[in-house]
């Protein structure tokens, strides 16, 4: 769902196809459009864009009320042991049934939630822990909560399973018909197939892409899928899971080692002026406090080692490891508000490296106009992108709305090296780090991206070297030495590229005393004796000179010696759940890791006898659990991390060790996925009185006008998407003659019914209009798109790939000129997958 895998991740799609041909797997595609993915699947169910939570919620409802799920002991064992289904929730919690579409805690202005009532019922807090773990850990030990209360019979009305039952009771096949627009039979076929193919012997997988993320309820759609998979016992097991198909070569790496405003590397939060983050101690206690009983109990080690990586020898216990000199965020500084603030003149200088917001950004016209407000901008790319040339030939220049002479932006274009021209690593969508070697120097003055940032940093450090201003402490004391060894650059013309190896080694971590790489993150310390840029990557450089990302020995299954899967070469996360509550594989067919009670654990008891029992993985898979923790072991109450977790707490990153069917924390828009209409929708919400996500990110500003609900001026639903032959905003594809010829021109998919209503001819021009912009495209009249009938109302949907712009070999209008800036409240992603528009035959400006 939410993915057109055959066209957008074509080579990966070979694997589900192989599962179908070689192993009889059933492939089902639930997606608004009939695509090449649908064509290769056994089942295609079209649903209206933005109705996914109704579809998934109805599967959950179908599953938990089915005979199979209630009678087969497998599900009960999985759910009671590995999820929070049995956990008791605060009796003050009220859900959408009681509050007609919202959850308890909604602020009086309806724009934010306080989540106090979403909490667990807990036993009394434990006595104070022993201490002696370290300065920050000892403080964490003093504030541990009591264990959550549970009802293993799952009958208590406040237990999570009962809450879910009530919450999804109204998500019926009949509701699916009315909201999603498919038939109840189509729905039931999918729900029943999922159920029948999940269990002890079989697992089912759900794969998604940006068709799920780019919504004002994006996070909740994915959560609904994760809940379903947890209920079906499909998490942590081979062939199960929820697989995100991400779009860029190392988009996973850019998330892990975040160049994102809200995150430090390896999923530590960014220090934040809105939170109690006044010192390193406050930062750690605020962030790690609620998580300390999970593996995040090691947060102090991760955080201190990060600051040591940042400031090197200058970071000491006395100066809080330089914490005071690290910036704090103070609000939402993500892409959309960034561009709005740029338009408002707040931002003066802009680095744009390998992105093309003039085409790729939502409400792209507004983003281009923001560029004109800058004092300076640096673009690094291969070609003269639309972002680089906005001042020269953008639609706003051609229309005379802006004049080059009036645009004061000083623009630098710096040519970039291609991947084959530099050494480095990518992290793919499976969390697999893979090394690419350098094959040749880039041409002329083209340089790697790392070169640019490294040399900019070197120049700046030289400029600040003599500054006595404490505000400059951070840049002055930045640990910034990645000089290559002579042999690394010997074959090349360019001698001053930074050493990719030294950077990766710092990301991996090493001990301060001897500079030796850390083999595992278990060796990290909170006393400043270890340096580590991103703890989840530890193990990629396990010893000096060894780079596991460059391992290239494949095998027939998990290929543990091909690249490096973070964390610790674990390919399937939470794989403790691949074994039952006794540590035995659920079945031979689905064996992954298991508890071997006779194996030598490598440790000795107090009298010096070897301790027997450890987790083993015949496939060579990394074990995502404490290696010597027996399944029956009960965790200690006054303890952190692994010591708190019990032998069945498979979900080691969760504070209770369980998969969260109900999210007591971490989400800003509710503990359970509930259906809200897209911010722009052709229909009123049929599920609740609440129309759209109450806490969605909305920016009502000039040029970012929204359409109303069932707006008669904009009655048609539009989805944007990609094609195989282009890549995103096209900077890596529209300039390539082969790809440009394969996919030369922007088109718009239109159903024959809509074409007949509007007089649209196949291959003729159409104009698509929203309150934000107007574009033209060639019509592709196709039965791949069908109107939906929702409760008697016909709703048309059209599809637009968004790769084109005015530069390159394949040119076309910028589809994102149509979309609005509106976003998911958890992660500030936009809603490019669904908004409303109107369409007419003919070209822009009335030409035909």
């Amino acid at each position: 769902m939410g993915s057109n895998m055959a066209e957008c991740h074509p080579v990966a799609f070979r694997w589900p196809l192989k599962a179908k041909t070689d192993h009889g797997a059933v492939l089902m595609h639930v997606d608004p459009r009939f695509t090449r993915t649908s064509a290769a699947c056994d089942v295609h169910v079209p649903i209206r864009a933005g109705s996914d939570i109704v579809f998934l919620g109805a599967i959950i409802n179908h599953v938990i009320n089915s005979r199979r799920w209630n009678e087969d002991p497998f599900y009960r064992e999985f759910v009671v042991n590995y999820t929070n289904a049995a956990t008791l929730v605060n009796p003050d919690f009220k859900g959408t049934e009681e509050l007609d579409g919202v959850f308890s805690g909604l602020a009086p202005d309806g724009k934010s939630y306080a989540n106090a009532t979403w909490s667990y019922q807990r036993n009394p807090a434990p006595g104070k822990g022993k201490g002696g773990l370290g300065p920050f850990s000892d403080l964490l030990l003093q504030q541990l909560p009591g264990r959550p209360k549970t009802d293993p019979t799952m009958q208590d009305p406040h237990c999570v399973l009962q809450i879910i039952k009530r919450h999804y009771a109204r998500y019926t096949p009949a509701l699916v018909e009315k909201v999603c627009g498919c038939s109840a039979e189509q729905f039931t076929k999918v729900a029943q197939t999922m159920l029948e193919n999940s269990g002890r012997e079989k697992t089912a997988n759900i794969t998604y892409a940006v068709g799920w993320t780019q919504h004002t309820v994006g996070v909740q759609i994915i959560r609904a899928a994760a809940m379903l998979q947890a209920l079906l016992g499909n998490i942590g097991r081979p062939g199960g899971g929820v697989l995100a198909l991400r779009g860029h070569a190392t988009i996973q790496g850019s998330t892990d080692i975040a160049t994102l405003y809200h995150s430090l590397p390896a999923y530590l939060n960014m220090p934040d002026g809105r939170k109690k983050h006044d010192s390193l101690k406050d930062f750690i206690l605020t962030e790690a406090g609620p998580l300390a009983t999970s593996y995040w109990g090691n947060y102090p080690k991760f955080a201190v080692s990060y600051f040591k990586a940042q400031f090197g020898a200058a970071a000491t216990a006395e100066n809080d490891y330089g914490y005071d000199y690290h910036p704090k965020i103070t609000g939402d500084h993500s892409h959309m508000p960034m561009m709005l603030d740029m338009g408002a003149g707040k931002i003066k200088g802009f680095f744009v490296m390998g992105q093309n917001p003039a085409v790729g950004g939502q409400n792209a016209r507004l983003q281009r106009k923001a560029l004109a407000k800058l004092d300076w901008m640096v673009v690094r790319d291969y070609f003269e992108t639309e972002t680089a040339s906005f001042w020269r030939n953008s639609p706003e220049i051609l229309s005379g709305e802006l004049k080059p002479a009036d645009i004061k932006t000083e623009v630098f274009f710096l040519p970039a090296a291609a991947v084959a021209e530099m050494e480095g690593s990518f992290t793919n969508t499976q969390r697999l780090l893979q090394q690419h070697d350098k094959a040749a120097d880039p041409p002329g003055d083209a340089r790697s991206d790392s070169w640019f940032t490294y040399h900019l940093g070197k120049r700046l450090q030289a400029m600040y070297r003599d500054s006595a201003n404490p505000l400059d402490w951070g840049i002055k004391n930045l640990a910034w030495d990645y000089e290559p060894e002579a042999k690394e650059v010997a074959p090349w013309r360019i001698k001053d590229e930074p050493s990719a190896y030294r950077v990766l080694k710092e990301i991996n971590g090493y001990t301060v005393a001897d500079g030796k790489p850390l083999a595992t993150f278990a060796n990290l310390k909170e006393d400043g004796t270890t340096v580590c840029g991103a703890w989840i990557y530890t193990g990629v450089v396990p010893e000096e000179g060894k780079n596991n990302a460059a391992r290239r020995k494949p095998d027939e299954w998990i290929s543990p010696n091909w690249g490096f899967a973070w964390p610790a070469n674990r390919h399937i996360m939470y794989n403790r759940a691949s074994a039952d509550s006794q540590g035995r594989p659920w079945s031979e067919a689905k064996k992954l890791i298991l508890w071997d009670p006779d194996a030598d654990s490598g440790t000795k008891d107090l009298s010096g006898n070897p301790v027997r029992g450890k987790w083993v993985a015949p496939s060579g898979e990394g074990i995502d659990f404490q290696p010597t923790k027996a399944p029956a072991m009960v965790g200690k109450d006054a303890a952190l991390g692994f010591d708190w977790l019990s032998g069945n707490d498979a979900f080691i990153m969760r504070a209770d060790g369980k998969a969260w069917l109900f999210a007591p924390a971490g989400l800003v828009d509710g503990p359970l996925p509930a259906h809200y209409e897209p911010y722009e929708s052709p229909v009123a919400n049929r599920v609740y009185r609440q129309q759209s996500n109450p806490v969605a990110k909305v920016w009502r500003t000039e040029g970012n006008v929204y359409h109303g609900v069932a707006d008669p001026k904009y009655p048609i639903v539009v989805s944007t998407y990609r094609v195989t032959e282009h890549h995103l905003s096209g900077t890596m594809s529209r300039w390539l003659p082969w790809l440009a010829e394969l996919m030369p021109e922007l088109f718009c998919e239109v159903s024959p019914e809509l074409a007949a209503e509007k007089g649209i001819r196949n291959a003729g021009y159409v104009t698509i209009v929203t309150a934000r912009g107007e574009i033209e495209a060639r019509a592709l009249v196709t039965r791949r798109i069908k109107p939906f009938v929702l409760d008697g109302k016909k709703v048309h949907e059209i599809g637009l790939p968004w790769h084109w712009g005015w530069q390159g070999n394949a040119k076309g209008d910028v589809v994102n000129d149509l979309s609005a800036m509106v976003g998911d409240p958890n992660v500030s992603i936009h809603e490019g997958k669904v908004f409303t528009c109107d369409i007419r035959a003919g070209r822009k400006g009335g030409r035909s």
Partner: protein
Amino acid sequence: MGISRRKFLKVTSGIVGGGVAAELGILNVDTAAAAAKAGKVPIKSGRQIPSICPYCAVGCGQIVTVDDAGVIVDIQGNPDSPINQGTLCPKGAATLQLVKNEQRWSTVKYRAPGSDRWEEKPLDWAMSRIAELTKKTRDANFNEFQDMPDGKGGTIRKRVMNTYAIASLGGATMDNEWNYLHQKLMHALGVVYLENQARI
């Protein structure tokens, strides 16, 4: 555009492509016939360097072939990779044209404020100027403290050590190592408008 049809069909044969264009009737390409005609892809010989496809997150392995003069002459799928077993999609198969492309710029271009044209500039000059602008902009717009809501209707003075005057937007096809260096430098400068395609 200078495309040799024979050349592009050879490389893209047997993989998804051209379907929509053909359906539109724009290209008049009979893809099935073209695929039948194209035959085997010739693999150029030379030194082979393992690489990874620069496009999507599937992470297909590639082999970059370099001739005796050190020039990249071919990029094909890596048959050893357990991910793609030698196959590539049309984008991956076109990677060579990302490297060898007449429209690729290999010198620094500069547009002065208010100007209507690019000028060519030395790399070193551009790096100096960019460093100078970065410092100037940061220093003139640096916030040591800021009043933040205290949650009780008032405000509280917090140390924020940031600048709102510089923003950075990166792509997600750039090395892990770059991501690491870039976040490190931006944080050292106090930049908080730090974003990446990874959000989208």
